[in-house]
């Protein structure tokens, strides 16, 4: 049961997107999420679609992988769409039943919200599918470095993240072992109602926590023994360096954001003239 949990969802492939600096991808995802909430009409929507489709194509990740991420938020998407559909006030009422009414604004809102959510998830999964967890941590550390000037412990946060990534498989394995040991002594994790099953988890969690703390203690000692003194004076084995492609990536992003923003301002004007 626990074996099925896979960590991250990195899809190894040799593509220009995979080779981009993680900072570019982080920034790109950020920009893309913002852009999704900037457009209000079909033209903006079309630009975002073209951008997303071409990035997905470039990344060489099969489309089915992207769709997988959507399944888990299907319920959320349905609720959002329904709320928008039935509860948006507007002038052109298409159908009404009690307080529920479908207006043409409601339909438009529902469709746009749905599209935004789908694009949001596909867009972010492009990043997680093309970046290893390690690169992501490194990218975050470097990208957030300016925050360390205001005493945010950026290095420590990144170190915590990468250690967590390293220990998740170990702890999963350990959970499996403890579970089997408890089952051998008659524990039942699979039957009964929800409350019963949650209760059955207690004898699993207690030893797991105890052992996690012991491991943390050992690890801290091992790190100290290897002269770990925090981020100060540390060099990097694999430092992040921008290449020509990364600057191009930033340029493409800026161009994309520019188009969306400009259309947001001038789009309505253009429409007036037409």
């Amino acid at each position, binding site marked *: 049961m626990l074996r099925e949990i896979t960590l991250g969802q990195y899809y190894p492939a040799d593509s220009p997107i995979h080779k981009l600096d993680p900072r570019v991808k982080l920034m790109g995802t950020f920009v893309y999420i913002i852009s999704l909430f900037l457009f209000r009409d079909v033209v903006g929507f079309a630009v975002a679609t073209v951008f997303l489709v071409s990035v997905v194509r470039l990344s060489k990740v099969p489309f089915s992988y992207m769709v997988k991420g959507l399944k888990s938020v299907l319920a959320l998407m349905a609720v959002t769409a329904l709320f928008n559909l039935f509860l948006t006030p507007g002038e052109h009422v298409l159908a009404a039943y009690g307080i529920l009414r479908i207006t043409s604004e409601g339909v438009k809102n529902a469709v746009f919200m749905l599209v935004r959510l789908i694009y949001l998830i596909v867009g972010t999964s492009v990043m997680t599918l093309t970046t290893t967890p390690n690169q992501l941590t490194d990218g975050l550390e470097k990208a957030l470095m300016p925050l360390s000037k205001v005493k945010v412990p950026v290095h420590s946060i990144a170190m915590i993240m990468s250690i967590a990534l*390293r220990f998740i498989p170990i702890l999963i394995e350990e959970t499996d072992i403890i579970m089997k040991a408890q089952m051998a002594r008659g524990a039942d994790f699979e039957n009964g109602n929800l409350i019963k099953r949650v209760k059955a988890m207690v004898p699993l969690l207690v030893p797991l926590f105890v052992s996690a703390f012991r*491991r943390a203690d*050992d690890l801290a000692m091992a790190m100290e*023994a*290897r002269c*770990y003194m925090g981020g100060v004076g540390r*060099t*990097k*084995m*694999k430092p992040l360096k921008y290449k020509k492609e990364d600057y191009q990536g930033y340029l493409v992003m800026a161009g994309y954001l520019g188009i969306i923003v400009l259309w947001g301002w001038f789009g309505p004007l253009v429409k007036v003239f037409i």
Partner: protein
Amino acid sequence: MGIIKADRLVHEYIRRDEEGNVESIQTALDHIDLDVQPGSFIAVLGHNGSGKSTLAKHLNALLLPGEGTLYVDGMDTSDGKHTYDIRRSAGMVFQNPDNQIIASVVEEDVGFGPENIGVPTDEIWTRVEESLKSVGMLKYRSHSPNRLSGGQKQRVAIAGVMAMEPKCIVLDEPTAMLDPNGRKEVLKAVHALNKKKGVTVLLITHYMEEVVGADFVYVMDQGKIVMQGTPKEIFSKVDKLKKYRLDVPQITLLAHKLREAGLSISRGILTREELAAELVQLYGSKK
């Protein structure tokens, strides 16, 4: 002066109750004297609770002496400003391989130590390559440590220490959690480092078989050094070892029993070959 020199080293674990009153004192190290020459292979033997792990932690300044002094590479461990220099010259490998590997890729883990001490990037790469090669793990450099066997993980941990180019490495029961094959792998790697790179090795263990190849052996019991000498000298005193709850290697035991039964076999037989040679000398001519 040797690379490690302990002079009447004492360490006590003090247990206090909630008000801070001393509840009990356990003396883990009781006036230990050590003198280790550079380039030698030293083994410290003892059963559980004999204080050998406490001793190991002192050598890396993870614990500080309560009384007495300990010099590592000429530096006093109780002097706070040398702490990191001491950790650079005396690397440490711990018992549980999983709990000392920090990164999720082998080569990044080996690079962790050099990163910490501020080695330039290019040199980190050469050091990582060299130290992975020296323990025979170079072809696993881009693997995840989770997929390696215990022996392999422990060799990665040794490589991680070697990459910091220490003068001395302290191994605190590095094979306790490994299967016999893993144990052999790790010991082979450690012996190779000692012979080829001239690194001083201090191996802490309770497996007698691992002590056989050492230059000098200390036996600890209840925080004291109770026996010291070459493996041959130590293992010739089978009865005394038993008193300290230590078993001798099977072959030594066999030789000892044969001797007790009246055969004229010399004391302190360590290997099968030695015993075979002695037996051939005794009976071979009668063929």
